[in-house]
């Protein structure tokens, strides 16, 4: 084993040991969640036929209005009891969980400081009982009892609080991939390669799935076959949604684009491609002409003398402030000078000699200042990204600082 390998082996062993010790002695990476129950039923007018609604494209316009009611909020369906409505469809109940670690962890710390078992926090009713027992036994004073009871009481608003092993594991995976990506700064290695491949694969998969649901389903299938989509993939779709058959044209273009994969006639895909390129070029040209070309010329025509008036508290003009006027005018003069000299620098039809050369040189100085500002902003951005990652590592993973 060479020296470098030995050093890295020692660092690895010490690192794993420290992590193991921290994991078993602290709240490192522990993620607590609260659940919220959902159970939806679709209700509609009672006078419609008893059979569940089967909307089709043909009779979509005559479908009665329906709405969704959350049984978790209205378990007895009191709103439906009037007899005006009836239940048409019922969805399988589900529960969503959200991270409440920021609320649970400080309470656990308070329990630990008071000599109580921190795991009690997850069952607020039992925790309150234990607080009473501890107070009776003299382990905590009245102030501590009130404080702990109040803190635990805050968790009672959640129907279900628990440790989420899935999310805790997620924190570990995120930490592993962060370290794997950062390891590239030392040199290329298999951990970095794995992390890179996972990022690319996951991103491609996500974009594909997002594209399918947001565009292919919602902007094509829903428009062409609203009835079928309402019964299958998009139950929240309005019953009177009528099909729009003009969307058959984009459907044909999709087929033409995919023709590229066919063994013969791949050239057909150039037609829709040509359409997209033409449309995009047109869009961009108009956008640039109006907002950048004309808009920026208009914004560049500014007065070189800007009198700044001093207004009293009562709203009367008391005169012109000399210093503010000088400052505002100076700003506008610099902007005008920078614009003109910068433009001269990019004017290559005339040789940059004499007055043109000197003006172009001033333009270069303004450009350098702009590049410096860009560099400064870029550094700021990169440090912010590193800060956010380190905050995650030190907070959510190692529990050394407050979590984000």
């Amino acid at each position: 084993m060479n020296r470098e390998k030995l050093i890295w082996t020692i660092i690895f062993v010490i690192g794993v040991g420290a992590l193991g010790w921290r994991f078993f002695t602290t709240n490192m990476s522990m993620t607590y969640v609260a659940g919220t129950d959902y159970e939806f039923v679709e209700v509609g007018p009672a006078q419609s036929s008893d059979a569940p609604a089967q909307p089709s494209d043909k009779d979509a316009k005559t479908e009665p209005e329906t709405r969704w009611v959350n049984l978790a909020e209205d378990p007895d369906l009191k709103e439906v009891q009037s007899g005006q409505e009836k239940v048409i469809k019922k969805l399988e109940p589900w529960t969503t969980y959200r991270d409440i670690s920021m609320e649970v962890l400080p309470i656990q710390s308070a329990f630990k400081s008071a000599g109580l078992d921190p795991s009690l926090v997850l069952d607020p009713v039992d925790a309150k009982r234990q607080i009473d027992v501890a107070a009776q036994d003299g382990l905590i004073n009245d102030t501590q009892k009130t404080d702990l009871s109040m803190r635990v009481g805050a968790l009672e608003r959640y129907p279900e609080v628990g440790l989420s092993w899935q999310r805790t594991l997620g924190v570990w995976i995120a930490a592993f991939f962060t370290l794997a990506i950062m390891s590239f700064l030392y040199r290329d290695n298999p951990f970095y390669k794995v992390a890179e491949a996972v990022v690319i694969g996951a991103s491609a998969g996500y974009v594909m799935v997002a594209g399918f649901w947001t565009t292919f389903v919602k902007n094509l299938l829903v428009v062409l076959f609203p009835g079928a989509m309402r019964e299958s993939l998009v139950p929240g779709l309005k019953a009177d949604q009528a099909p729009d058959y003009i969307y058959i044209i984009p459907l044909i273009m999709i087929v033409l684009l995919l023709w590229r994969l066919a063994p013969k006639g791949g050239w057909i895909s150039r037609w829709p491609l040509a359409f997209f390129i033409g449309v995009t070029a047109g869009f961009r040209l108009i956008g640039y002409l109006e907002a950048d070309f004309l808009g920026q010329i208009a914004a560049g025509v500014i007065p070189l003398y800007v009198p700044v008036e001093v207004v009293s508290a009562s709203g009367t003009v008391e005169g012109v402030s000399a210093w503010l006027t000088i400052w505002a005018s100076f700003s506008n003069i610099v902007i005008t000078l920078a614009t003109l000299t910068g433009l001269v620098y990019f004017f290559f039809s005339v040789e940059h000699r004499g007055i043109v050369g000197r003006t172009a040189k001033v333009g270069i100085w303004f450009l350098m200042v702009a590049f410096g500002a860009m560099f400064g902003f870029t550094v700021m951005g990169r440090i912010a990204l590193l800060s956010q990652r380190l905050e995650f590592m030190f907070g959510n993973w190692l529990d050394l600082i407050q979590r984000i």
Partner: protein
Amino acid sequence: MYQFLKNLDRRWVFLLMGLAVAIPILTNLTFPEETSPMVKDIYQAIEDLPDGSRILMAYDYDPGSMGELQPMAKAFTRQCAEKNHKLYYMALWPLGEPMIDIAGARILMEEYPHYKYGEDYVNLGFKPGAEAVITVIVTDLPKLFITDQQGTSFNDIPMCRNIRNIQQMDLIVSISAGDPGTKQWVQYAGTPYDIPIVAGVTGVQATQLVAYIPDQLIGLLGAIKGAAEYEQILDDNFPHINDNPDAQEAKKRMGPQLVGHALMVALIILGNILYFVGRRRGEER
């Protein structure tokens, strides 16, 4: 010394920068923020709108720029919620949708429980097509956003029933990490249709967008510094936000910024000194 510094392995520089950022985070080093006029303009633009105004929240960024943009996205949501504005969230980036959940919907659910989905805020989700999407929704919003992110018909959502296009919005808040983003909102919505826009962007973009101020863009939050100043003005005007640690995210990141930038300046000076010393010694670049 010269030879040592000239041949210094760049990995020592990486380590130094890592420590320069990590130590202020671990020691919770923060500094007071002064609000600049541009940040005040943005704050005032939202504040001057009548309560309950319609605001389009365009979250055009992804996890790669969360460090810079998430604090300002949260702060925008908080100020709008303080004014009870109606918030229409949408994204032109595929991963903008989860950003809406993290830096929009979650803030409203946890900190402003009176905000009801569909009545006070709606998540229209992601729509691919970049500037083409803006060009369509500027005249016909439900044509592209047939349903919201959850699949509810656009016209079934109470706060969307009377919305035909985004010209009915009182303000566009664009939070952007690149293209499509603030530039496209200015080009295809703000400039041609006179819809007021405020923006929060990454540092890389900021210098390119400053030229749009003040005629085509009311104001711009540039990178984490802009976000920190915006958090400060919210703290000053809404004291209960000051007590919320989640609302101090950008301000916390300014400590590492100072030390990191100081190190960067020192390294640039050192690099220049080495260059001139080398040139005096007759060494090639």
